Every structure is written in structure tokens, then in C-alpha cells.
């Protein structure tokens, strides 16, 4: 019979050591991962390289050094790959002023593998930690930062806007927290980079909080007409408001005859 309590058993020490190692190791990894080159397992990197050679190398070069069609990927980091491929912008469909979002072409695993390989080339922005993506920060501060840093291109509520020569700032509704964060740290296409000295991770979290608040809370005033402001309101007035009123005047005019 073995009536020793569980913690007295000979293998208990082994479990405690194991748990301690896992906790401290993953804690350390979580604390340091944000802006370090994130290396996946050698298998994942090898898989990523294979995918890269098959799908990306014709434009970005066989070693990611860049070619005629595409820029160098050395140092762009895992976040960049995760954003560009994860939103379907990459692989690009056609060259033009700017790449459009389209259905995502790869699975999560494949994207992580490619991200791991690109991250292994040189240090760059990593995929953000979960804690910054919870949208539970300070929406007021986020809103202020958004108006100062982002609204001139993306519109005050992220409805999007035009840039020069066919380029544009896309609407931000429906963009995931992770992709918003990655866009800020990597500055995809025509967007500037907002690094951690410019907007701290906490600031970024606040901006995400603001955007998610606006997205999830419908306007208290009713239907939003695309949130594009006075142009939509004016067209609505002329077409539907005045249109309806004219229908009434015709009705009133016809009744008398």
C-alpha cells in the first residue's frame, strides 16, 4: 500500500522543476518576444523557406533580398509577413499604385512558417503579444492619438480616404486587432511606420481600443450612411429627402385635379 500524500511521492520534485522551467521560460519568452527576431523551430523555418521559394521568390528574390518586382524582405520581420499575407494583400495580384485586400491564400500554419523564415533573415518587428490586442485600453487616449496620427488618411472613424495617384488609406472596419498593430509597426505600402518610440505599445493598444469601440458600438443617431460625412448626408438629402417630398407635392397637386 502506498499512502504517502501526493507531494511526497518521489517524482513530485521532477514535476515541480518541470513546471518551474516551463513557466519561467515562457514568461521570459513572452516578455522579450515583442521586438526581437522571432525564430521558429528549424523545421518551421525550413517549411517557410520552401513556401517562400514556391510563392514569393519570383518577386522578392530567392533569399528575400528583393528583385525587380518586389522589395527586400531582410529585416521586415515576422509582423510584416503576417500582415501582408494574413490580410491577403500578398501574394500580390497585379502591380499598381497599391495592393488590395483579397481572400487569404495560405493557412495560419503556412503564414507562421513564412513569417518564421523571414524573421530568421534579420531582426525585425515581431508578431505582437496577445496583451496588446485585447482592446481593453484607454479609448479616449486612443481616440486622441488616432485623430492626431491616423485620421488625416484613414478618416476620423477609420472609414478610409484617398491619397495621391490612386493610392489610398483603406477603411479599418473589420480589420483584426493583430493586423492593426502590425500595420502600425511595419508601415505597409504607403503607410508610415509608427515605431515604439513614436507610439508605445500601450499607445497602440489604446488606438486599437478606440477603433474597436467605434466598430462595435453603432451610432446612437441611427444608420451611419457609410460614416463618410457631409457628402453622403447631402446626397441623401437631395435624393431621398427631397425626392420623397417631391413625391408628396405631386400627390398633393394631383389630388385637386
Amino acid at each position, binding site marked *: 500500500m502506498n499512502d504517502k500524500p501526493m507531494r511526497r511521492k518521489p517524482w513530485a520534485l521532477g514535476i515541480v522543476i518541470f513546471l518551474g522551467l516551463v513557466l519561467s521560460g515562457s514568461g521570459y519568452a513572452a516578455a522579450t518576444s515583442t521586438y526581437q527576431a522571432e525564430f521558429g523551430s528549424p523545421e518551421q523555418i525550413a517549411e517557410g523557406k520552401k513556401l517562400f521559394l514556391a510563392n514569393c521568390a519570383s518577386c522578392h528574390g530567392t533569399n528575400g533580398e528583393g528583385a525587380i518586382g518586389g522589395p527586400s524582405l531582410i529585416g521586415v520581420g515576422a509582423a510584416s509577413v503576417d500582415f501582408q499575407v494574413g490580410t491577403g494583400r500578398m501574394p500580390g495580384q497585379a502591380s499598381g*499604385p497599391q495592393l488590395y485586400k483579397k481572400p487569404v491564400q495560405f493557412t495560419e500554419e503556412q503564414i507562421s512558417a513564412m513569417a518564421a523564415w523571414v524573421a530568421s533573415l534579420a531582426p525585425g518587428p515581431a508578431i505582437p503579444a496577445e496583451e496588446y490586442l485585447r482592446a481593453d485600453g484607454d*479609448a*479616449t487616449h*486612443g*481616440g*486622441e492619438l488616432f*485623430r*492626431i496620427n491616423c*485620421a*488625416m*488618411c*484613414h*478618416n*476620423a*472613424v477609420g*472609414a*478610409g*480616404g*484617398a*491619397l*495621391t*495617384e*490612386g493610392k*489610398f*488609406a483603406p477603411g479599418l472596419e473589420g480589420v483584426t486587432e493583430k493586423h492593426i498593430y502590425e500595420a502600425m509597426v511595419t508601415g505597409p505600402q504607403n503607410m508610415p511606420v509608427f515605431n515604439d518610440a513614436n507610439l508605445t505599445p500601450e499607445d497602440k493598444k489604446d488606438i486599437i481600443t*478606440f477603433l474597436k*469601440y*467605434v466598430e462595435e458600438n453603432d*451610432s*446612437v*443617431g*441611427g*444608420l*451611419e*450612411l457609410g*460614416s*463618410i*460625412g*457631409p*457628402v453622403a*448626408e*447631402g*446626397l*441623401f*438629402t*437631395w435624393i*431621398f*429627402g*427631397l425626392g*420623397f*417630398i*417631391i413625391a*408628396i*407635392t*405631386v400627390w*398633393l*397637386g*394631383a389630388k*385637386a*385635379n
Partner: protein
Amino acid sequence: MSVITEPKTVIGKAANYVDERLTIGSVLKNFGRKVFPDHWSFMLGEVAMYSFVILIISGTFLTFYFQPSMAEVHYEGSYAPLKGMEMSIAYASSLDISFDIRGGLLMRQVHHWAALLFVAAAGLHMLRVFFTGAFRKPRELNWVVGFLLFLMGMAAGFTGYSLPDDLLSGNGLRIIDGMIKGIPLIGPAVSSGFFGGEFPGTEVVARLYSLHIMIIPALIIALLGIHLLMVVVHKHTHYPGPGRRDDNVVGYPLMPVYVAKAGGFFFLVFGVIAAIAATFTINPIWNYGPYDPSPVSAGTQPDWYIGWLDGALRLAPSNLDLVIAGFVIPMGVMLPIIVSLVFLVLVGAYPFIEAWVTGDRREHHVLDRPRNAPTRTAIGAAGVTFYAVLWAGASTDLIAVNFQMSLNHVLTAMQILLILGPVVAYWVTKRACLSLQRKDREIALHGRETGRVIRLPHGEYIEVHEPVDKYELWKLVDFKDYEPIMPRPNKKGKITVGTKLRSAISKIYFEDRIAPVSKAEYELAHADHGHAAVEEKPKRKPKQLKKNL
């Protein structure tokens, strides 16, 4: 002599009491018998007036809660994403109206939608008056009053738009500030006088508030009073038709028909505005945030009625600046100001321009069908196109991003359209009007084509034409034909430059014209044996014959 009986009912006695003291009965009797014609397009001005009444009602509610102060406070209301934010009292009180005062947001939205509808209905009313020639003698002055009312509507709208002191309206004010400062010599002084120092200052909201709730509404009410008084003095115009002449009005009396109708119509308009305001967000100021001179949001536009001026600014080429004695004249700002002022002056002065060109001094109470004044209609179409391109110019960025085009290309296309569009519109409209007149003439003379082809005993095929009834015929033939004015020497025997100019413009107006069917023509066409006269295309007939042979 009829016997005067004492009224017996309470209302009758009360009315008698008032009448004996104010003799208001005769006024009411006359006014109540005023006849108004019936047509849907005559109600557009009414829509503008009702929108204005709704603006006053909802605006009064808003004044109870709005505080026009630019002092800084920390927002502590219930809209979460702005909590604790530093902002002006004006913006904070606008947010309170939107979130914390019962019915406040609905009233704000009623007020704003009504404002958009007010100017839109007034604009459409102006177009109706223009295209039917209702501005001709004796109504030229009323056109000017109406034109001033439209300008006041724009001014009321703009001053109101700027009151909440949110980011969007602040950007709009900043543009105005830039335009004022761009005026040579006086610009900076005027700007600092208006804003009480450097933009944005701490006073402009209070000043705009005084204009918005006092000066401009008072002017609108005064002008509206004059406008309506003139309508009563002039009596209403009516469309051409049997029995409709310059010396009568065919329609229904004010009492009881129009009093009931117009009263009901007010509530219909109010209902439409309330329904829209309850369903659709307008000017969500909480999205824009408090005004701060550094941020500018993409998609910053003014309300629609200021849009054409914003468009003029956007479309003006930026490389035309003049340098005079070391001072830069910024044509990117001056050109839009000059062009829009010229446009406005032409609109306001059009009745006098046309009266001068036609030399017509008679009174006109029967309206023109737009086709029967081809040049005026064409000028109107060109003006509408010019305005519309400027208006669309204010949304170049939205057009570019929503239709996936290059912003630069959209701008260039608009610049070309601004010049070319009115020319094309003028030409197409004039030709369309002349063709419609020809068609009218054809129908008046030969009736409608029935599509029924019959063979006569001797073998000839003819299509049966059905003559139009007399009622319809009246509409087709009753209009005045003008002819180009020849330059004639004055008393001193000289042909002045003015006379030459007038005859040149008159030639543009009336060189191409279709004369109305005269009585003689009509009788000839309908004479029993006048069939030969009806077939009035002798030039083509022989040719065809030759071919057939």
C-alpha cells in the same frame, strides 16, 4: 340692402368682437379669396419655408442647452471614448445635447436635416422659377429677394455647422480663415478681426452664435416676409393652358382649399424630416472629436450647400500665383473667390440681363414651358452643370477612393469638365429644346401619328393623324416669340457700343428659333382641301421621286 344680423354662436360673437375693433374681416375676406394655381412645382418654396419653421422650432430647443463658450473643460458626460478629454464648453454642451439630454440628439438631427432640406428646397425652387421664366416683369425684385434668401440660407447653415466646435467644423473654419487671409492687403486684418486674434482664438464660436441665432434668422424672416408679400401683390403665376392669361389666375382660393392643404403639407414635411432624423445619423460630432488645430481628418467636407465653394478651391490650379512688387497674390484662393462671386452676381442679376436682351417691358403672369425659351433653358443647364461640377469637386477624394481611381486624375477630369461641361450642356439643351418645339409644332399642325396606315381607293397609302384636342393645343401654341433686336441709332444718330452688344447677345438668344403656330397656319393645315399645304416638305419630295424613277 341686406339685413345685418347679430351673430349667435360663441365663435361668431368673438369674431364679431375682433372685427368691430380691427376691421380685420375685409382683409381676411380679400386674402382668403386670393386664388392660387395648382401644380406640384409651386410647392417647392413652401417646402423651404416649412423647413425654416422646423429649424426655428428645433433650434429654439437647442439654444436651451447649447453654450457658446470656448473655455476649456474636461468632458465628464456619458460618451466613453471622450471621457476626461479636454475640450471647449461648446463641444461639451453639444455632446451633452447628443447623449445626456432627453430628446436632444433627435432635435439636433431634426435641426441639421431640416437645414440641409431648407437650402435644397430653396435651390430647387429657384431652379423652377428660373426655368419657367417666373422671374420676368413684375417679379424681378422678388427674384433678387429670393436670391438673397438663398445666400442667407447658406450663411445660416455655415454659422450653425461651425458651432459645435468639433474637429470637422473647425477644419471648415480653418479653410475660411485661410481664404480670408489670402485676400491681398486686408486679409490678415479681417481674419484677426473676425476671430479676435490668431485663429482659432477663444471668441469665434460666440460670435458665430450671435449671427446664427439672431442676425441671420432675423434677416431671413424679414426677407421671407417681403418675399411672401410680393407673391400676394403680384399674384401667382400659372402654366399656359386654356383660359390662362396674363390678367387672371386659374386655381383655387386660399380659404379654405389652400389653408387646409398648406397646413397639412407642413405636417407632412415635418413628418418626413422627423422620420429621417430618427433613422439616419447626421453630423456625428462625437466621432470627430474636439477641435484641435493640428489634426485634419480625411474626407473633411462642408455641408452640401457650401460644397461648390470647397470644390472651387480644390479645382483651382495651384501654380497661377502672381507676384506684384514683391507681394504674392495667391490665385489658388483668389480665383475661386472671384469665380464664385461672378457666378453669384450673374445668378442674382439674370432677370435684368434677360429683360435688357429681349427689350420686353410687358408683364408676364403666364409661365414659359422651358422648351419655349431655348436659350434661357440652355443657359440654365450650363449654370447647373457649372455648379454641379464645382459641387462634385468637393468630393474628389471620396470619388477617387470609392471608385478606385487616382485622385489626381479625378481632379484633372473635373477641371476639364468645369470648362467643357457647361458648353456641352448649353448646346445639347438648346438643340433639345428646339427639337421639342419642332415636335410641338408638328403635333399642333398635323396631330399625333396614330400608326394606323390606310390605303385609299386609288392606291395611295397614308398614315392617319389624330388631331390634338383644343385643350392640349393651347399648351402647344400659346407662347411668345422673340426676334433678334437690330442695332438702331439713337436720337443723335449714333449706334452705341451698348446697343451693338445688346443686338449681338440678342442674336445669340433668338437667332435659332421656332415660331409658334399661327392661326393662319393652323387653318391652312386643317382646311378640307388643304392637304397639299400640310405636306410642307417640297424640297425632299422631288428628290425621292427621282430616285424612285
